[in-house]
C-alpha cells in the first residue's frame, strides 16, 4: 500500500496491509507534527505533494529496502492538504521474518522519505506561515536524492 491521501490516516489499516503469514515482526511508525516547532506555536499544517512522483519514490524506497533487508511487505502513506496539529501526517509499516530487519527498515524508510519523497510542509502560525525546507541553503545531498547513487 502506497498512498498520498487527503483524508485522516488510519494506522491500523496500514498495519493490516503488511500482514503476512511468514512475518514474525511488524513495525509501524507514525509521525505527527507537534504543536511547537523551534519555539513557535503551530496552529495548522498543510502538506503538498508531487503526487505521482511521491508514489514512485515511495515504491522505489520500498524496493530498495527489500533489496537491503529480508522483508515481507512495506506500506507507506502520507497525508496532504490541511492537517490539524496532533493528527498523523505519515505512517510506515514493515513486516519481516525477524524484528532486526523490521526495525532497521522502518527507521531507514522514514529517514529516506524525509530526504527524498517530494512532499512539502507549510506551518501556519498566528500571523504567518512558512514552507519548511524552502529557506534552507546548501547543496543537495547527492547520495540521498539522485537515483544512480541510491539504495546501496
Amino acid at each position: 500500500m502506497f498512498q498520498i491521501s487527503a483524508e485522516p490516516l488510519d494506522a491500523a489499516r496500514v498495519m493490516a496491509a503488511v500482514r503476512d503469514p511468514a512475518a514474525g515482526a511488524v513495525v509501524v511508525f507514525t509521525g505527527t507534527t507537534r504543536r511547537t516547532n523551534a519555539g513557535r506555536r503551530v496552529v495548522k499544517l498543510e502538506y503538498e505533494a508531487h503526487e505521482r512522483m511521491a508514489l514512485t519514490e515511495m515504491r522505489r524506497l520500498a524496493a530498495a529496502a527489500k533489496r537491503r533487508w529480508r522483508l515481507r511487505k512495506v506500506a507507506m502513506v502520507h497525508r496532504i492538504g490541511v492537517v490539524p496539529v496532533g493528527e498523523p501526517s505519515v505512517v510506515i509499516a514493515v513486516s519481516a521474518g525477524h524484528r532486526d530487519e523490521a526495525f532497521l527498515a522502518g527507521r531507514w524508510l522514514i529517514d529516506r522519505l524525509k530526504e527524498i519523497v517530494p512532499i512539502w510542509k507549510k506551518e501556519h502560525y498566528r500571523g504567518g506561515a512558512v514552507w519548511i525546507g524552502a529557506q534552507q541553503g546548501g547543496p543537495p545531498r547527492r547520495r540521498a536524492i539522485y537515483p544512480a547513487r541510491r539504495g546501496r
Partner: protein
Amino acid sequence: MKTLQIEVCFFAALRERLGERTMRAVPRGTTLAALWRALAAEAPGLERLPVRFAVRERYVEPSYVLRAGDSVAIFPPVSGGA
C-alpha cells in the same frame, strides 16, 4: 538554432511565487540550471533559494540537458514526513 517546448511545474513555495506550471521555449542544449536561472530572474530573491529538479518524475542534476518533450518539476528541498 532549434528550440524545445518544455513544460515546467512548480511546487510548494515556488508554486506560490511562479504558479503551478508554465511552458517555455528554450534553445537545444539548455541545461536545467540555465532554465532555472531564467525563470528565477522573473521574481526577486528566487535565485538564492535552494531547489531540486526532476524530469519525468525522477530526480536529475542541475547539469541535465533538456530534451524535447521533457516535463520538468522544480521544487524546494522536501519536508514531508512530520
